[in-house]
């Protein structure tokens, strides 16, 4: 049964990682109009225990996207400079939506596998029962 429970642990770690990714994507989308906001990116890494990888995934440090901020022309804005521009955010909604959809697909795949592991172990036990 150790393989089944290991597989369950690994898929659960995958779901956790995708949920964390979705959390940061939603943060980026919510702050798309915040002046001076840099979009956040999150990295994935495999979990290492006692010097070797155990197959699970975890989310690493949150990094800020250092690309140039969007210049928005609005002379009436209180933060506008001499040319009437102010720093917007560097969030691209298309990228964020695509990222969110990718997280959803990956989450679904992990969920499917979790369910499959459960079904496999249940049908193995059903074999003994008859």
């Amino acid at each position: 049964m150790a393989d089944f429970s290991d597989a369950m642990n690994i898929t659960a770690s995958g779901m956790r990682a995708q949920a964390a990714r979705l959390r940061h994507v939603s943060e980026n989308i919510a702050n798309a109009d915040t002046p001076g906001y840099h979009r956040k990116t999150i990295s994935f890494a495999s979990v290492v225990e006692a010097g070797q990888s155990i197959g699970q995934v975890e989310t690493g440090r949150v990094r800020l996207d250092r690309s140039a901020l969007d210049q928005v022309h609005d002379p009436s804005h209180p933060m506008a400079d001499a040319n009437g521009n102010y720093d917007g955010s560097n969030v691209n909604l298309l990228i964020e939506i695509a990222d969110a959809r990718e997280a959803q697909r990956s989450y679904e795949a992990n969920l499917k596998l979790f369910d499959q592991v459960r079904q496999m172990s249940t049908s193995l036990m059903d074999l003994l029962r008859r």
Partner: protein
Amino acid sequence: MEIRSNPVAQAYAANRPATAPDPNLDTSNTFGQVASGFIETLKQSEQTAMSSMSGGADPHALVQALAQTELAVETAVTVRDKLVEAYQEILRMPV
């Protein structure tokens, strides 16, 4: 002429210690490991369920712990049923 008690009874008395429980048996054998792993899984799942109800743990951990408990309980119940069935089969044997 030498009078001895029934040799069958003697043999029975000699073989009895084989079925007595051994108090010094270590639990590092396979079945002991399985049983302690089962108890550990149940404990962990209860802890996770409690902390999830009080808002501490994330739902993934809860689902994972409950699924593993379901697996463990199912295994234990199936093995127990099989053992009891085998024992009843022996009891039904015509002597």
